[in-house]
């Protein structure tokens, strides 16, 4: 990795983004509490406080230069510094307590309300999709917008049993993280990729890579008189589109698409250990901008959890306690046949007799 004629690269120093007075307090915080939706108070052992205001950003962290300047202006006027959250929201850290009310009102007026903390709907995270990506099966940002608009009050208040995180990935790459959220939305393709034989042969395609990248062994090389082609086993194909990514010149896809809705993903290690979300609605239409089928199903999930979840119980813990069979039946999930692992190891089928009815 020598690049002698290029200047040395720069890893930005995070300390430059934090004023000295805050850096000096690193490690002094011993607790935090939620003051009101969107406002977090960190406490030090000496009793001093640090206020954070978290706001809702537009989907996908897309910000015009003028909005960025607004953020900068708010930092300068009301806080010590700012930070983007890992869910594409934004936080003002070190907000001056005396100016809090004024700041919140100004944020509200500007259309960037504080919220998304504690037992609320947090910022919906999503990928870029049709705005700037070639892989997207569905448009995650507009789905995120529709969801945030519909459940807007749940962002502004903290009345859910526990925090609720929704993430949306527009294609099987899942850059948006739909696979891991409390509720995840996964853009998927309907059609099996097709091999254009003439174009495939004309291109210089790495067949070994093509075969090894297929997660289910659905692609097999086939010797022909004209050269090596591949066949795609329709039964084995899981429409991950890896092959299209490796060989866009020779393999193409009819872009009919839909989403799967997953539930109960959780990170952290204070319960079962990290687990991806589980598919509960395997096939939901997602034609822009008609997202009512998605929103209806999310609402069914949220309403059941809101009704029957215990205080502090995340969606995954709620399902763990009440059991998948009850949860699937109550939300009308399915068809069940499409919720079963297609691949080895088939961990979705029970190997004990722990049945709930």
């Amino acid at each position, binding site marked *: *990795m020598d690049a002698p004629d290029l*200047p*040395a*690269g*720069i*890893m*930005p120093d*995070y300390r430059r983004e*934090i004023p000295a007075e805050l850096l000096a307090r*690193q*490690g002094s915080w*011993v607790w*935090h509490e939620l003051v009101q939706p969107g406002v977090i108070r*960190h406490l030090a052992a000496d009793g001093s406080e*640090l206020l*954070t205001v978290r706001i*809702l950003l*537009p989907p996908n*962290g*897309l*910000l015009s*230069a003028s*909005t*960025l*300047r607004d*953020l900068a202006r708010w930092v300068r006027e009301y806080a010590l*510094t*700012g*930070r*983007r959250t*890992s869910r594409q929201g934004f936080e003002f850290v070190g907000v001056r307590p005396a100016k809090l009310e004024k700041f919140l009102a100004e944020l509200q007026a500007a259309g960037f309300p504080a919220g998304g903390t504690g037992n609320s709907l947090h910022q919906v995270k*999503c*990928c*870029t999709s*049709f*705005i*700037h990506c*070639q892989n997207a099966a569905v*448009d995650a*940002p*507009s789905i995120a*917008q529709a969801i945030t*608009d519909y459940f*807007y009050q749940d962002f502004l208040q903290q009345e859910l049993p526990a925090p609720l995180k929704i993430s949306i990935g527009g294609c*099987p*790459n*899942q*850059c948006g*993280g739909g*696979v891991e959220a409390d509720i995840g939305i996964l853009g998927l393709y309907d059609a099996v990729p097709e091999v254009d034989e003439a174009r495939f042969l004309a291109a210089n395609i790495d067949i070994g890579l093509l075969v090894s990248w297929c*997660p289910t062994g659905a692609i097999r090389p086939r010797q022909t008189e004209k050269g090596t082609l591949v066949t795609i086993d329709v039964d084995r194909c899981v429409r991950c589109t*890896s092959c299209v990514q490796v060989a866009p010149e020779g393999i193409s896809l009819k872009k009919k698409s839909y989403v799967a809705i997953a539930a109960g993903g959780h990170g*952290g*290690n*204070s319960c079962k250990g*990290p687990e*991806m979300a589980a598919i509960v609605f395997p096939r939901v239409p997602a034609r*822009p*901008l008609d997202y009512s089928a998605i929103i209806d199903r999310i609402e069914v999930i949220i309403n059941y959890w809101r009704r029957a979840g215990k205080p*502090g119980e995340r969606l995954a813990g709620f399902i763990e306690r009440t059991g998948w069979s009850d949860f699937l039946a109550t939300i009308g999930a399915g068809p069940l046949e499409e919720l079963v692992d297609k691949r080895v190891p088939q961990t979705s089928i029970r190997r004990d007799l722990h049945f709930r009815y």
Partner: protein
Amino acid sequence: MPGDSKEFPLCRQLMKGPSPSHVRELSDSRYPLAMYEEGLATGETAYGHGGYISIPELPSGVAVRNSCRPEIIEESAYLRILPPAGGWLSAGTLEKLATCAETYGKGLIHLTSGGTIEIYTTREQMVPMVRELNTAGLDIGSTGNDLRCLTACCGPARCDMALINAPALATYLGQRFIDEQQYPGYPQKVKSGVAGCPNDCIRAMMQKDHSFIGVYRDLPQINNEVLAAWQQAGGDLAGLIAACPAGALNWTGSTLTVAPDRCWHCMACINFCPAIRPGRERGVAWVAGGKYGHRGPQGPMVGYVLVPFIPIKDDDYTAIGDLFGAFLELWADNARKKERVGDFIVRVGPLWVLKELGLKVEPQILLSPKRNGF
């Protein structure tokens, strides 16, 4: 957005709701809104396969999306900027990004889900924009088969749970492996992350190919005075005891204790109650193989724990950096083309990785011994 109210009807619709709208941001910039409208109208993205491009004088971090609608835009080039660790963005940096985006780009900044920052621009504007970013202490990278999306949680500057200084460790790694972030030489991309405690708010264990998570090895520290005050103020002791997933908390009637043989060193009690603080013997667990994507034999997976505890003393990250580099080299030397770390580890086995790196299997990484005689 053009004044004609009949133009971009779908985009317009996305500005009508109560919540902040990305279309409002797009239309406040020079982003070609017709491309997005086209995607929404047809139900298919108007962008085509693109890729990472080579610009003289620049490292990686420069790329282009092709266009399926050249009459709207020929192509859309963009820069990917290495983000300050922990997501920290001062007013000055926000302004600098705004200025760069306006001066050299389309006036739009993208805080990506992977943790980087992108600015859409043209090929021509790239070199001057990078020069200006450099003067502000920022640089580009994180595209192609390189060390990507090296991110961290907010760390001890704001968080009361931070067991280690995640942004500092991420910054150390980023600087030491800056070439690996800028010059793609790996079999595939490798995303990395540092989380400050087992709460893993950034989901490093699930999203990152290669991560370090702050852990403690001794026991949670209980302050029974603070506990009494917390109870007096309405703290739910029964709820606290029930919150321990390992059943390790015992209440004698006057004091709360942690059973050393039961505690599994998570954050449940610490998250629940201000009277309980993390242990003092701190370090990181090393986790490898996480990924969200449905590519490769394994598809999405949670990473494997390879080492349960690497001590950190006096903010010396050298040993962690050595391990980080040694693993990347091992993977680079032995992975198949385009093989993500997770698929690689499953194929060769976590044991092989440890053996090659001269590390021992610690009993803590065993979920259970194998259940067959193979």
